[in-house]
């Protein structure tokens, strides 16, 4: 049976893992290579690495950090941040990434999704969407540049369009829920998952064990991504998986 995935996310700035609240007040946490090794041993099902400053500074990813991290882990590895061309995809895949996550550049140049999917396969093109609920409309808008700029685009429509263009997976990150540790945005995640036919990774808001079980059942997510609860060891992955397993949610229990 296909299991639900537990995905620690390493937000990296200047080669260090950082984690903030609602994208602001960033605090430094640890060395990405050491954290990656730790998560690999703890039974993480996948690892995500975002160079969070790369996109708006126009800086390219630090390929050596990607490579060092990739060399230490034997689980799938997704990398995002500052990836604007098909050649960037190639370089990062060569450095050891399995999937590439694109956010702002996909909005600015949707053709990038198609070109990358044709060249490397849809399975390595992950469309990451930062969504924020608009009080007036009750719908979610797509934000870019690290949550700084409202595009006015509808997040659910953009997810559908992204899949049509060739994305093989969607990461849906709720800006409202991010860093607040009050649970994932179930409504948003479930809406996206019901309307697109690719795996959905829920992101933003994990604070306790029940948040994970809720987003993987009610939220219809295929994977749950989290950062600070794992980095600060508030939730340990083996314990989380034991909890999900007891709830009857299929997870990989041996690693």
């Amino acid at each position, binding site marked *: 049976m296909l299991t639900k995935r537990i995905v620690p996310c390493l937000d990296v700035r200047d080669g260090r893992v950082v984690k903030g609240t609602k994208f602001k007040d960033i605090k430094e946490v640890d060395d990405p290579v050491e954290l990656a090794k730790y998560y690999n041993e703890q039974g993480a099902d996948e690892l995500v690495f975002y160079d969070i400053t790369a996109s708006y500074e126009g800086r390219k990813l630090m390929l050596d950090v990607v490579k060092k991290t990739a060399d230490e882990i034997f689980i799938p590895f997704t990398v995002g941040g500052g990836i604007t061309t098909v050649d960037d995809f190639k370089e990062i*895949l060569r450095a050891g990434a399995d999937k590439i996550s694109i956010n702002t550049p996909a909005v600015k140049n949707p053709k990038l999704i198609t070109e990358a999917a044709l060249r490397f396969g849809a399975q390595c093109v992950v469309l990451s969407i930062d969504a924020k609920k608009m009080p007036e409309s009750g719908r979610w808008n797509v934000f870019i540049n690290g949550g700084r700029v409202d595009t006015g685009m509808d997040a659910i429509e953009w997810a559908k369009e992204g899949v049509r263009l060739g994305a093989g997976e969607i990461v849906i990150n709720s800006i409202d829920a991010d860093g607040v540790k009050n649970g994932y945005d179930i409504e948003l995640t479930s809406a996206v998952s019901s309307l697109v036919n*690719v795996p959905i990774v829920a992101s933003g808001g994990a604070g306790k064990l029940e948040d994970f079980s809720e987003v993987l059942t009610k939220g219809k997510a295929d994977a749950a991504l989290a950062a600070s609860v794992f980095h600060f060891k508030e939730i340990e992955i083996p314990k989380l998986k034991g909890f999900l397993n007891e709830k009857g949610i299929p997870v990989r229990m041996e*690693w």
Partner: protein
Amino acid sequence: MIAIVDYGVGNLNSIDNGLKRLGFSSIVTEDKEEILSAKGIILPGVGAFKDAIDNLKSKGLDETIREAAEKGIPILGICLGMQLLYEKGFEDGEWDGLGLLKGDVVKFEMKDLKIPHMGWNSLKIRKNDPIVKYISEGEFVYFVHSYYAAPGDDHVVCSCEYGVDFPAIVARGNIYGIQFHPEKSGKTGLKILKAFGEMVL
């Protein structure tokens, strides 16, 4: 020496890294001599069937792999690399594969399941083979694919369930195929690479 065939795309370093971690010597190469003098060959692959087979052909590596197969060198295709070993692929058209295994590569067609089949899924062991000597029934491995092999004869070592029961590990003579990514499947994956490495020593 295990030759990992480099034909343009894909995460070749992970396989190389996995083999080296296990103590095997390996090389990422597109050099025909190097491939034909290797004790074992790994054909990796991510991406689209047509691009991959076109890339192999443009470098003349399709002939090299057929020659290696005839020489009896163990060949392991991984993911798309496994699919290329079959006669035909039906990804956005109809394309000839290497034809080293009988059967076609077809798309998952289930309305209620998400495509690609992405994530950790469990193996069912169908047949005893040295490639599975270190693993047991039900172990989890990492899959990412939208197409699967529909074998034309009985060469399935392990299968997996995703709407249909499809081949996860296949073996016929010196030709091996693995639909999942052993280099991304934690300890279970490394045990499978170890078994292949020992076979070719």
